[in-house]
């Protein structure tokens, strides 16, 4: 516990963020163990040296294409949503037309008609279930939660 307190104070000292009270507290640690003074000086130097080190710039071509890749992927996602909505509407209309004609046809046995209704209802239940699951996942998506931090 004492070690951690010293570590916090020392880190604040290295970054020049100590309050007057904390300075006194740190001085007490340093008085108890004078070798810590030398250590702090060396760690300050390491911190300064770290600031000299720069990361090598990434591949220029990849960085130039970066925005267009992000933009295209965002746009593609919007396109996919529109495409899916359109497909669902057309499919629903097609199924409705097919079934309404089919169910009205007196030559089709009642068992077959009931079977078709069952299949269609089943598909609807499955579709609703998948949509519900997707929405539930969206609610607990960790990336959306990061925003609330």
């Amino acid at each position, binding site marked *: 516990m004492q070690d*951690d307190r010293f*570590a*916090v104070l*020392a*880190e*604040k000292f*290295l970054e020049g963020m100590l309050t007057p009270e904390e300075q006194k507290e740190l001085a007490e640690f340093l008085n108890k163990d004078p070798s810590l003074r030398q*250590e702090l000086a*060396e*760690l300050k*130097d*390491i*911190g*300064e*040296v*770290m*600031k*000299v*080190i*720069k*990361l*090598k*710039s*990434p*591949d220029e071509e*990849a*960085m130039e294409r*970066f*925005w267009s*890749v*992000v*933009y295209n*992927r*965002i*746009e593609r*996602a919007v396109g996919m949503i529109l495409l899916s909505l359109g497909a669902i509407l057309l499919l629903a209309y097609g199924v409705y037309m097919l079934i309404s004609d089919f169910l009205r046809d007196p030559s089709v046995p009642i068992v077959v008609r009931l079977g078709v209704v069952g299949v269609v209802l089943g598909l609807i239940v499955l579709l609703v279930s998948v949509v519900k699951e997707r929405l539930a996942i969206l609610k607990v998506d*960790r*990336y*959306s939660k*990061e*925003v*609330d*931090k």
Partner: protein
Amino acid sequence: MTEREAIIAVQMGDKSAFRVLVEAYKEKAYHLALFYLQNEADALDVAQEAFIKVYKYIRKLDPNRPFYPYLCSVVRNLAMDHLNRQARMDCVPLEVDIPVDDERYHRAIMVWEAMEKLDDTAREILFLRYFQGLSYEEMACVLNIPKGTVMSRLFYAKRKIKKLIEGGEKEDAG
């Protein structure tokens, strides 16, 4: 256009304003992803994916808060997911640029080499502080730990570097 103005513009439907944020942080996001993944192609992919995720939830973002810590969290999470899914391939460690004419050139090389030998926790805290420029508060948010823990981890990490350098110097002398 400022970061805040760009966020508000995107929230109001201006997709092109998102470019301001992408251009401002793409390199940092890529470096962070590369730090975790050590693979250039994967890092690029994860950095781009992170921006797409951020775009998806941008309506919920507070424009008055700094943007990068949020992006940083997303890059980190995506990189972790990626590491869990895939075995590391073609490891390419991060490369650094140290001005040769700088009087601390040799010292800087020693510090960087020592940093590469650190455990993941110590390396990560130093990387976020010195190579991503995050504040203590921002690091606490990204790593989900208290601010005091951030400070003590930073101190211990630098202490480890010092010991590694001393160990190296002793080896050279011996």
